């Protein structure tokens, strides 16, 4: 391929979003762009955006599907606030996404899709000149993508429909050219995917190259860009979504515990993929049980835990409501069950495909009685791996149900994952008990974890259940003294987990004007905001919690080192309430409940406001 030299500009970071109809293959296009960039050496972060409908009628606003990639020569932590490039395959995609494009950003549209009927479907007038108002705002490139694609495939013996379906490859090729990417990774992937279907292989390759060459040869693009490699810690990497990483984390944990993994679940967005992913691992001995509902899902997990497996159940907010009665049974029977809650927008069915952090209080307090459950949170897609292991560790070592929180953004977002050295992962110790003489179902070790005598163990026969019970013997007892004691023991056990946690890491300044305290998927935005502030000389620090219950013991001391404490959350201030009640200091929240991740710029400006004059 002869590359005509056009001026090349170097950029440090670019955010690009491909949007089109559900059937336009945008997820695939985005994934290819991501992989190519990662292989090249950029740091990347991605976030797909699915419609709530499976496949809404073509061309409608409801059917728009998108995929956003942020790639950079720096280390990045978010999928990007504002778009540098928007590739819109039809009017509906254009309409629903144009507001996210930054001033002077690049807009590439498939001119052929802006027909009268498509304009109408998107709610425009049939003859509306939809671009006129943006002429001065964006750099607009109208490309006849469909026509060019069909042209490139001329002579291939395929239906027109099938040919047209290659237009995403054209768009991909074009963006590759603009950002000076190599076609090789995608060519290889096409080979592996369509190697046995020569027609499909040929058509996709042709379209990809046509797009590339179109950029190269036409006059409309003035210049190309390059985003150099990032400084990345050496290692083996793969791209991973949160739902994949949490699944692998559970499998890894089961190896570390030395117990079979059991998952009892019921499908629900955005948690379903975990059940799907794990159902492929039967050769690892993983047992997946698609139950009749959420209740049966956790019920089976509790049964499996009683019988000695590493038991988990996965769901999202509305499913937690259904599981909470059983979560409470796990609390009082002190069984190790991990409940993964992949949060989504609420209340009620709410916004099933959108992200939110609004389940925190529900998982902490959504049960009758005093019912403490440890809660850990994952901060990014790849972090789900370690978070899952940590959840399993606490469950097994302390004999307790544990909640792990993720959310839509983490679950379906992806980032490069530096693959862990599996040897360095610490084994997880069980409380399996087989000795008749020392056995008592509620006899505890120093961590207050009770013995785990599995059905099938001779001589350790015992019955557990949901009624209040005596310590040590586990006998049902509803007396005042016993209840008081057991309420305290259950609380102390969970609280005690904090005593063995490593010290918190404070990123940035160790003391100063402002501390960001966060948890979960806000990590990337907060880190980026902290970096910006630090770069401008602000004295800010960041603590991001893995453990929300119990809170780490050193939190108060860290708070004392900063003038302002700020807790950004994608809810109305849930962790905030707990912290204010506990520390009685005027911690401030930055709260947003609008389906969107934080914009870094908002965090930065809010922080500056609080700090006032430096």
């Amino acid at each position: 391929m002869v590359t005509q030299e056009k001026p090349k500009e170097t950029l440090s970071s670019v955010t690009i979003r491909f949007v089109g109809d559900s059937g336009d293959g945008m997820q695939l296009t985005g994934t290819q762009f991501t992989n190519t960039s990662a292989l090249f050496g950029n740091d990347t972060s991605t976030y797909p955006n699915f419609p709530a409908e499976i496949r809404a009628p073509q061309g409608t606003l409801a059917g728009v599907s998108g995929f956003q990639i942020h790639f950079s020569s720096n280390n990045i932590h978010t999928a990007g606030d504002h778009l540098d490039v928007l590739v819109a395959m039809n009017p509906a995609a254009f309409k629903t996404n144009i507001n996210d494009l930054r001033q002077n950003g690049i807009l590439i549209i498939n001119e052929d899709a802006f027909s009268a009927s498509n304009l109408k479907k998107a709610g425009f007038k049939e003859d509306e000149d939809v671009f006129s108002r943006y002429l001065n705002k964006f750099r607009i490139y109208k490309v006849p993508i469909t026509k060019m694609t069909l042209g490139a495939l001329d002579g291939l013996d395929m239906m027109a429909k099938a040919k047209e379906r290659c237009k995403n490859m054209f768009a991909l090729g074009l963006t590759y050219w603009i950002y000076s990417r190599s076609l090789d990774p995608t060519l290889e992937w096409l080979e592996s995917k369509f190697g046995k279907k020569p027609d499909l292989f040929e058509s996709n390759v042709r379209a990809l190259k046509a797009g590339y060459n179109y950029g190269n040869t036409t006059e409309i693009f003035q210049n190309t860009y390059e985003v150099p490699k990032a400084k990345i810690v050496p290692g083996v990497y793969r791209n991973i979504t949160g739902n994949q990483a949490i699944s692998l984390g559970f499998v890894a944990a089961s190896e570390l515990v030395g117990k079979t993994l059991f998952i009892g679940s019921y499908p629900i967005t955005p948690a379903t993929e975990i059940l799907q992913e794990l159902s492929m691992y039967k050769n690892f001995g993983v047992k997946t049980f698609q139950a009749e509902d959420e209740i049966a899902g956790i019920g089976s997990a509790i049964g499996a835990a009683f019988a000695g497996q590493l038991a988990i159940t996965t769901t999202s907010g509305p499913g937690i409501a259904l599981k909470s009665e059983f979560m409470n049974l796990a609390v009082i029977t002190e069984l190790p069950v991990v409940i993964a809650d992949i949060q989504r927008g609420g209340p009620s069915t709410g916004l099933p495909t959108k992200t939110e952090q609004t389940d925190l209080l529900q998982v902490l307090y959504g049960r009758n009685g005093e019912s403490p459950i440890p809660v850990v949170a994952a901060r990014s897609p790849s972090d789900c791996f370690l978070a899952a292991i940590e959840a399993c560790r606490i469950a097994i070592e302390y004999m307790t149900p544990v909640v792990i929180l993720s959310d839509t953004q983490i679950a379906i977002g992806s980032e490069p994952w530096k693959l862990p050295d599996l040897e360095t992962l610490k084994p997880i110790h069980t409380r399996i008990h087989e000795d008749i003489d020392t056995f008592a179902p509620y006899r505890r070790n120093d961590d207050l974890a009770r013995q785990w005598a599995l059905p099938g163990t001779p001589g350790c026969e015992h019955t557990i259940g949901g009624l209040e019970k005596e310590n040590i013997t586990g006998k049902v007892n509803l007396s005042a003294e016993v209840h008081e004691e057991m309420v305290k023991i259950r609380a102390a056990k969970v609280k005690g987990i904090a005593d063995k946690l490593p010290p918190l890491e404070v990123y940035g300044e160790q003391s100063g004007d402002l501390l960001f305290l966060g948890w979960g998927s806000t990590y990337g935005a907060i880190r980026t905001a902290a970096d910006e502030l630090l770069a401008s000389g602000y004295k800010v620090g960041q603590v991001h919690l893995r453990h929300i219950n119990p809170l780490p013991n050193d939190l108060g001391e860290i708070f004392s080192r900063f003038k302002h404490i700020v807790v950004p959350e994608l809810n109305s201030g849930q962790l905030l309430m707990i912290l204010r009640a506990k520390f009685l200091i005027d911690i401030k929240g930055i709260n947003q409940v609008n389906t969107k991740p934080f914009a870094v710029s908002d965090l930065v400006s809010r922080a500056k406001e609080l700090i006032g004059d430096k």
Partner: protein
Amino acid sequence: MTQTQELTKADFVSEGDVKWCPGCGDYAILSSVQTVLPTLGIPKEKFCFVSGIGCSSRFPYYMDTYGFHTIHGRAPTVASGVKMANPDLSVWVVTGDGDGLSIGANHTVHMIRRNMDLKVLLFNNRIYGLTKGQYSPTSEKGKVTKTSVYGSIDNPLNPVAFAIASGATFAARTNAANPKHMQEILKAAADHKGTAFVEILQNCNIFNDGAFAKYLDKETKAEENLILEEGKPLLFNNDTQGIVMSLEGSHPRLIVEEVNTTDTSVSITGKKFLVHDPKNEDHTLSYLISQLGVSLEGTPTAMGVLRAVRKPTYDEVLYEQEAQAKAQRGVGILKKLIYSSDTWTVTEESQAAGV
């Protein structure tokens, strides 16, 4: 404590006091279960009793085995988890008509259709006992209880029919007041591989006394009980009456006919009495028999094993699939799994190479 020792009833009696009301039918069930278990050749530690909530569900506390008193209506789910985790165990579900058929009916259905290898004892006293006397899904229409002051307006469910229609591979009915029959049935259920559903008619002498009196009264006993025996014609009332299939008006239905005095397999009108055939792959006859006495007036109620067919159980197939997957794909190796996907390597050099 180990298999070598001979087990006795006493081995299954737990320490604490039994706390049902004096006179409650639950005592007889407990005693029968404790009598049957030692005869099964299963080591004591392999038994696990899982219950929901209700008077009936206190059962596990009184057994000296592994036990789990879970939450209302959900025992089948926990028991399924136990069984899937360790198929080596003999797992029993103890539930009531409220627990298993009201709040928990969904789990009952799905457990049964999956044919999870569980023994299910549903204590049917046609009342909510533990909450002190409200009508249940098996209470008769018109029944006056604390919450149906003007008479219940729900149509009752027939537990055994419900189980068979849900695909039960084993379904039986017995009466707690008849320990000998009950023990036979319990043994048959224990021996069955797959979900073994047993409805046990149980008197709640406090809130629904005499609900099943007609099956026990000397006067009515013979005509109200149809004792099932495999391969035997469906005769009752001291073999003076029996069940035939009527096709009158081209509508198939079971009806009662008098026995021809000389030949007890044939009715007075010459029709053949149906022969009990619980092992038939087809569940038609079992289902029809389950309706007797309950939804068909003027017929006796079938007591015994209505259905017992061997089909693959959920847990069996689960483990088979696992074995196959291991055979086909090789036993999974974590490192491979993690490193298998599209990966790339960043080295000091590739870094150094710059753009």
